[in-house]
């Protein structure tokens, strides 16, 4: 299966990656070869099989509803790219 340039652009937008003109052909070629590999899956007979997303069947543990986290804002914001009065700041979002 080959992948169209337009599709790569859409994937890049969804992934918030900026692929420049120079590399787009290269990326398209490499992705196509990976998808060719992945296409071998289509040969597998998986009728009557369920999708499993985990190695073995276990169930989710549930946590008691008790507060144990304390305010560590200063420690977290010390490693943030940009903050102001306790808020993380980003270029203005358009409403």
């Amino acid at each position: 299966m080959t992948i169209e340039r337009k599709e790569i652009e859409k994937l890049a937008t969804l992934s918030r990656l900026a692929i420049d003109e120079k590399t787009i052909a290269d990326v398209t070629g490499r992705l196509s070869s990976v998808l060719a590999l992945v296409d071998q899956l289509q040969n597998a007979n998986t009728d009557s099989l369920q999708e499993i997303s985990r190695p073995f069947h276990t169930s989710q543990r549930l946590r008691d509803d008790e507060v144990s986290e304390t305010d560590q804002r200063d420690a977290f914001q010390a490693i943030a790219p940009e903050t102001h009065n306790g808020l993380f700041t980003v270029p203005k979002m358009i409403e």
Partner: protein
Amino acid sequence: MSWETVIGLEVHVQLATKTKIFSAASTAFGATPNSQACAIDLAMPGTLPVLNKQAVNYAIMFGLAIDADICQESVFERKNYFYPDLPKGYQTTQLEKPIVGRGSVTIQLADGSEKAIGIHHAHLEEDAGKSTHEGNLPHGMSGVDLNRAGTPLIEIVSEPDMRSAEEAIAFAKKLHSIVTSINICDGEMSQGSMRFDVNVSVRPTGSSVLGTRTETKNLNSFKFMEEAIEREVERQIDLIEDGGIVAQETRLYNGDTKVAKSMRSKEEANDYRYFPCPDLLPVLISDATIEELRQALPELPDARQKRFVSQYGLSNYDSNHIASDSNMSAFFEVVAKGSSNAKLAANWVMGELSGALNNADLNFSGSPVSPQQLAGMVARIEDNSISGKMAKLVFEAMWKGEGTADEIIQAKGLKQVSDSGALEKIVAEVLDANLAMVEDFINSDESKRKKKLGGFMGQIMKASKGQANPQQVNQILLQKLNELL
């Protein structure tokens, strides 16, 4: 052409847990920005979610309250999109296997009729943080507060079963009533505890094909919701009648400016790429857990309403009104039992008390007049110690903290005069002093006489300093005037 409106709702209900759905950080409202966002809420690298048991229980309780199927193996999925208030870049939610399956909610309409609204499903998910664009921020920047990020929500998705704004509001209010009655949500709409997304479409009356719908997001008051629906219906009809077509889009309604606008620009190329969250395992719910929660489920508004009719003899209207609010219901029951006149108790709770609380922006649990106090006052009306008019004075005094009804009646000398000898004397004196009015009364048409009785009543009440029993005065007055005819 006549048009039919079709409405479906998606309702976000913040669950009243102490901690977040996937972390042990507090969910308390109004904290300093980012002081309740722990490493998990901030999506710090390497952090992992662990599910809050109470959030699961609350979701099950909601399912039981609407008589829905509980999915005994539900699965969390990741919904992928980028937004600064979504720290992980995906929202952990449920899609294929939501915890609550099909159910139904019955709404009562103004004409007394009832209608069942289908619930498609309800699922557990995490709330996002909050962005601010105003205030003291560097130029061109927005601020992000992640305290709300990870607050547990259930999203309730209705079938498109509503046909008017009235039905939609009735449904929304009913959900509010249910989730607050079973104590899984504090119901504080102004704090965003319940938020509504409204899907609206129109179609020619009689058509069975659905029109293209728009979704108006994030309405957090019943009033705004009603306005938004009415405006959107009007907009769609105008558009179609002018030969246009409705675009499927997300809209925002600003309740303050009364302006709705499209968010189409933001929607471009959305593809949420849902897949099962590998950090969370399937949530298995045993029959025993369901049974335990069912046994402990508080009384639901519908059952309470029926009980209010049978136990207290309330009307349908009154019972619905009170039963929809669990705090009002609890208050009412104390007043009704303590006063032995449930109807009167209902009137005072729904009328004077609700009005006063509303004006003071208080709720029933914060009422300055206790239910015991109000019961004491209603008992004095019931035994004719005070008139309804005097009761208003007593209520005001109780509100100001001047004591019990009996203490106030005593202190203000408000006791009603019901002694017939004394009343007859007052009536006779008033008639003697107002011969012209008596003459006028006699010469009037039968039909006008009733109106003129009011003039005598006013004089008599004034003469008795408002303490005369009005029913008795009325009786004596009629008798005396009839004798003159």
